[in-house]
């Protein structure tokens, strides 16, 4: 077994293992940290397979931004012991057996499909410029569509955020009665 294969299999195993932990952890913040580790491992796999640009983006975008926001939300909600118990409830066999079987079937199909093709081993490196050419060449339409989708999401987020701000303003201005030194009697 040569060094390249070790460099592939070790992170790949870490990715699979930590992904399993993401699913089985009851504590949301722990699960998210395993997700980060999984993403980092996948990034190493990308790197070994000759796609350093994809590897870097995996870290910058997924690990560095998206999961940060997940963690951010988990912290904001300050999930306590009750949510851990609830998560524990979801891990009972009757909750996961059926989806597990379905996923397993899909996995078999996928293996069957891939079995016929020759695996592309590492060796050729894809430079960032090639990625750029691909995105703005053959895949231009997909890029534009993704752009539209993100724009729609942005507008939607703005709309929701503005409504929240208005509601908060109402809350802030509405509280005053029955609070010490807040009695508006003299104003």
């Amino acid at each position, binding site marked *: 077994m040569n060094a390249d294969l070790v460099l592939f299999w070790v992170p790949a195993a870490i990715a699979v293992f930590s992904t399993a932990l993401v699913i089985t952890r009851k504590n949301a913040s722990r699960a998210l940290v395993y997700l980060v580790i999984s993403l980092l491992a996948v990034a190493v796999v990308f790197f070994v397979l000759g796609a350093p640009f994809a590897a870097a983006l995996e870290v910058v975008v997924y690990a560095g931004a998206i999961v940060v926001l997940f963690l951010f939300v988990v912290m904001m909600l300050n999930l306590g012991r009750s949510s851990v118990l609830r998560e524990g409830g979801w891990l009972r066999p009757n909750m996961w057996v059926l989806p597990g079987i379905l996923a397993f079937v899909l996995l078999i199909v996928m293996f069957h499909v891939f079995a016929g093709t020759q695996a592309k081993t590492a060796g050729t490196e894809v430079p960032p410029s090639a990625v750029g050419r691909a995105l703005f060449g053959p895949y231009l339409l997909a890029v534009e569509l993704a752009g539209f989708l993100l724009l729609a999401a942005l507008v939607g987020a703005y709309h929701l955020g503005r409504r*929240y701000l208005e509601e*908060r303003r109402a809350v802030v201005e509405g*509280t005053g009665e029955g609070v*010490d*030194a807040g009695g508006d009697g003299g*104003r």
Partner: protein
Amino acid sequence: MAEAVEDAVDEHHHLPADLATHFGEHCVAQPCVDGIPTVWVPKEKLRDVLRYLKHDAPARFELMFDLSAIDERTRQRRDGQPDSEFTVFYHLMSLSGDDDIRVKVALADGESVDSIESVYPVANWYEREAFDMFGIRFDGHSNLRRILTPALWEGHPLRKEHPARATEMDPFKMTPEFQKAQQEALRFVPEEWGMSRSGKHTDFMFLNLGPNHPSVHGVFRIALQLDGEVIVQAVPDIGYHHRAQEKMAERQSWHTYIPYTDRVDYLGGVMNNLPYVLNVEKLAGIDVPERAQVIRVMLSECFRIASHLLFYGTFAQDVGQMSPVFYMFADRERLFSIIEAITGGRMHPSWFRIGGVTSDLPDGWDTMVRDFCDYMPARLDHYEKMAMRNKILKRRTQGIGAYNTEEGLDWGITGSSLRATGHDWDLRKKRPYSMYDQFDFEVPIAQAGDCYARCEVRVAEIRQSLRILRQCVDNMPSGPVKSDHRLTTPPRKERTMQDIETLIHHFLNVSWGPVIPPGESVTTVEATKGWNSYYSISDGGTMAYRTRIRTPSFPALQQIPLISRGFMVADLIAIVASIDFVMADVDR
């Protein structure tokens, strides 16, 4: 009774006559040394009288300057006053009519009185304080609970039967149960303050800002109800710095109480001595020599500059600017070296005396002060460029924590903070004391009433104080620095050793302290942080029967919830920084 009112009218002022036409049959006037019309009102009529005075009187009394109580049970000399065990007094001020009135209500022990919170909102904390200190209940008060002493304190400190010294009590023991109970009593329960734990879409976060927090300028706690970082409601909690200054005044001679006053506003130094000694001099009828008066003005203005510089520096620091505070501390150091050369002390010189000042100025004082007056303006220009004109600082403070003059008066705001709302009332101009009318200076004002304006006014006041300092150097009168009056303490020594009469007199005045004639008087000065007044009652003894210290910081903190609602935590820090308070001044 009506005749008595008219007597008071003749003697003092026209307003009680006006009051007499409306409430004449109920009122009793009381002559006071300070000449402020003092009217006893039956407790049923209290709210009506105050409402009339605030809204309908010819000179509207917009400002409830002070409210507290007197335990009269052991007082001997109260001729002509209605029977009372506990007297609640209300000191109202009319800035539009430049007038004062003191309203008193007589109560028996255990009797309650109507809360006037609905007339003067600022009364909320003052009534809580009176309840805390005397156990007087105020009917209709929205939240009558202890404010200065801990929730589990036993007794009410300013009642005469409450011990004043540790030697009068059993030794204190801190048992684990006691500590646990005290800590439990400090737990913030939002429901007690009318707050809910969650809103429509959000769970609120409750944050204890203080009592130990870098930006609350001492031991001050604000319990915050936060939505994200936005303040929904704030509850200031004070009392961590309470030292029962008013109780101590009842156990110290008139003279030996002076050092205690220094510690009330610990940045004000001798500025705290000033209202106290002026007041005692008023009671004793002492005329202070001109030189002493000008020396007092000079040192008071030195402390005004020192206090404002510290305010300026910490203001910039609290919005995150690191450097100015260091420069300003260095400047304060120069000022303190002048103060040290003159008084021997630095922050708490306790240098004013009843009837004058401790000693004459040392040789070379004038060059020191003159050098400082030459040095300081350039530094102020530098700070102006560095801090006040900085765009980030402006963004952080402009439009934050604003209130107008009317709101300010409603909440008892005085001094520079009130002048930041465009109101030009400066006691040094409007009611000159200690020869302030002889000085040429301006009263800086700003219009916006926000954090930035409050700082702007104080910065301008530093320049005006420098002007006054220079005039003091240029025109220092000659003559004695102590009055010849027999109650001057300590008396002038030159003739002491000449004959037995003056020796005995000196001995008594120094060992027992002066006997101040019975009477009541209040004196208010424009202190560093606003209007500071001492209301002293003498029962003809060597100690005050009651001393009431009204400080500007106390009501200012009460206003915090109002001006910080809807802003962010960072804004609250800017607001707290702009108020210019020290907790010793709040809790006393």
